[in-house]
């Protein structure tokens, strides 16, 4: 039928720069400073090794459930590397590497996974502004829009980067956040880490759309799909989106195509729903291996240099674990659970706190009556 086809006002692009072997598409090279490249590499290795150590701690029962990030180092770190220190980051629950880049200490991470709320105040208040982990999937993106709105209202040229997964794009909150950001032209970069799985549900069952990036069109927003295991491509794409936001030209959706190499959380057994071959296929596209190959080729790193970095990182992690465990041993006063319920504890909570205090006194005195 001779109907008019409606042209979209925005384009959806795909970007990859480094291939799986670390070979560069030179005409797309974002030409990052050497220091940044090395800082990114170190952060990626730290992210990976910290995961391994956390898994170890969890299996020994020294911390509780945690969500590993392995495989997603390039997506997270490439994205967050484009921010200024006064920009905001609004994470989901799987951005440990990015949080550390923003100044979160390893100790704080261990404390949180150890079940201690004190994790929240371990690090200096003047670290780059970052919301805490948001467990309810998709719920944090709206906060990013509100934060961004407040900055524009105060005429600040700051931006917000918010992370979420492929699964999160199915939540109503994703939709409302994207739509609000479009309407208010908020300086937000929506960064979807499409790691192919939402626990056991594959990307293909999450939505019928061929890409997640194209969901941007529903909001009159530009969207781009990036090879999320290629840190250079991530930096390039997100930097462009950040610039756009900072210039007042509104939000962007960036889909990083990546892979969760480990379990969803330590409570999960991925063997139930995905094959070893699939995992191995993605291992070949490992973001760290690829980036190291490139850095070695560019002579920014050497094999012994890498070994030294690995060693330093192990030392850093070891120190953090020791510090955290010492701290955890000193924490745990149950009465702390009443802290910060409200700005001021109302009378009924004072009374309940006192109930618990009495119980604790009793039990210290040998089990009460």
């Amino acid at each position, binding site marked *: 039928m001779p109907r008019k086809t409606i042209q979209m006002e925005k384009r959806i692009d795909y970007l990859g720069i480094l291939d799986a072997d670390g070979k560069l598409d030179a005409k797309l090279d974002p030409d990052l400073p050497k220091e940044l490249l090395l800082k990114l590499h170190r952060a990626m290795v730290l992210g990976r090794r910290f995961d391994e150590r956390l898994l170890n701690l969890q299996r020994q029962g020294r911390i509780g459930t945690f969500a590993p990030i392995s495989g997603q180092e390039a997506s997270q770190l490439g994205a967050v590397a484009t921010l200024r220190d006064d920009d*905001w980051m609004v994470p989901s629950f799987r951005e440990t590497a990015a949080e550390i880049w923003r100044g979160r200490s390893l100790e704080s991470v261990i404390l949180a996974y150890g079940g201690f*709320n*004190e994790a*929240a*105040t371990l690090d200096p*208040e003047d670290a780059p502004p970052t*919301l*805490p982990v*948001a*467990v*309810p999937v998709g*719920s944090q*993106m*709206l*906060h*990013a*829009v*509100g*934060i*961004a*709105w*407040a*900055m524009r*209202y*105060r005429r600040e040229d700051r931006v917000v980067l918010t992370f979420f997964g492929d699964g999160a794009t199915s939540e*109503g*909150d994703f939709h*409302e*956040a994207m*739509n*609000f950001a479009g*309407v*208010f032209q908020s300086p937000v970069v929506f960064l979807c880490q499409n790691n192919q799985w939402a626990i056991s549900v594959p990307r293909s069952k999450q939505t019928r759309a061929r890409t997640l990036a194209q969901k941007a069109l529903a909001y009159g927003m530009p969207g781009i799909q990036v090879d999320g295991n290629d840190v250079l491509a991530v930096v390039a794409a997100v930097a462009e989106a950040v610039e756009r936001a900072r210039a007042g030209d509104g939000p962007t959706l960036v889909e990083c195509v990546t892979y969760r190499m480990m379990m969803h959380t330590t409570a999960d057994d991925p063997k139930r729903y995905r094959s070893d071959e699939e995992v191995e296929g993605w291992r070949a596209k490992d973001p760290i291996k690829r980036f190291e190959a490139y850095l070695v080729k560019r002579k920014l790193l050497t094999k012994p240099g890498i070994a030294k970095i690995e060693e330093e990182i192990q030392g850093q992690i070891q120190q953090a674990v020791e510090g955290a465990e010492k701290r955890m041993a000193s924490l745990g006063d149950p009465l702390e659970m009443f*802290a*910060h*319920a*409200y*700005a001021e504890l*109302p*009378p*009924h*909570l004072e009374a309940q706190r006192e109930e618990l205090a009495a119980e604790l006194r009793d039990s210290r005195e040998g089990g009460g009556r």
Partner: protein
Amino acid sequence: MSKLTMVQALNLALRQEMAKDDRVIVLGEDVGRDGGVFRVTEGLIDEFGEERVLDTPLAEAGIVGMSIGMAVNGLRPVCEIQFSGFTYQAFHQIESHAARMRWRTQGRLPVPMVLRAPYGGGVRALEHHSESREVYYAHTPGLKMVIPSGPRNARALLVSAIRDPDPVIFYEPKAVYRAYREEVPEEEETLPLGRSQVAREGGDITLIAYGAMVRPALEAAQRLEEENGVQAEVIDLLTLAPLDDSLFTASARKTGRVLVVHEAPRSFGPGAEIVTRLVEQSFYHLEAPIRRVTGYDIVIPLFAREKSYLPHTQRILKAAREVLETVA
């Protein structure tokens, strides 16, 4: 001092707080040009511009989620949800974030926001426009839940809610919106959150109510005096959470006889907590079982039958007389 309806009094509170503090931002569906479907935000957009008064897209989780973001980043959003029956679309944002962010960040990122919503029956509206489900919020740790009963306290409480460092759910009894006028001073007036008031003194029986139920409770008290020579004390809760039990438990210790009135469904309703606090704190003074006069445990009927659902003066009166007649 001028005589204002509750709608006008709320408008005054917003106007003055916005003038005083440019962190105060009003947002919601139709709050701008339209002035809100009940006109509570009328004129604000003319006075403060589109940057301070935001007409949002039609999405309640969006409104609340965005408000949370604004609040953690230094603003004092006052969002309107058009009817309390549509706050449920935002329930997860309220419970999972507004109520928890202070605790989660150990005080680093408080959420000083107000969520305003008209609640309750009595205006012949469509389905979902007449509910009274304040328990959902009163039961949620981390929130405050405020319900004014008249123009003057509505204004004073809204000012306090806006200045409060914690998230406040502010339910406005729409049946009272234009029901009557009260003197409301032009100069600043606040009321502390978490404090109830004696709306009428008396020593023979205690009637506990809030929101739109305070008026019928007062009417019943009046008739008890006129027709039975009985002095009823009426307690207006004003804040449901944190619940101020000091006044009503003291009153019960004085009168020994208590009636709780609310339009919310009875079971697991606000009255249950009040009764329980009385049992916990005034048990030995009670001379009769406490009675609840409440909405029934059904969806509030469409408006042709709404009046028979909502507690009314006669129903309160009858229950009060029964409580008074009970001999222990």
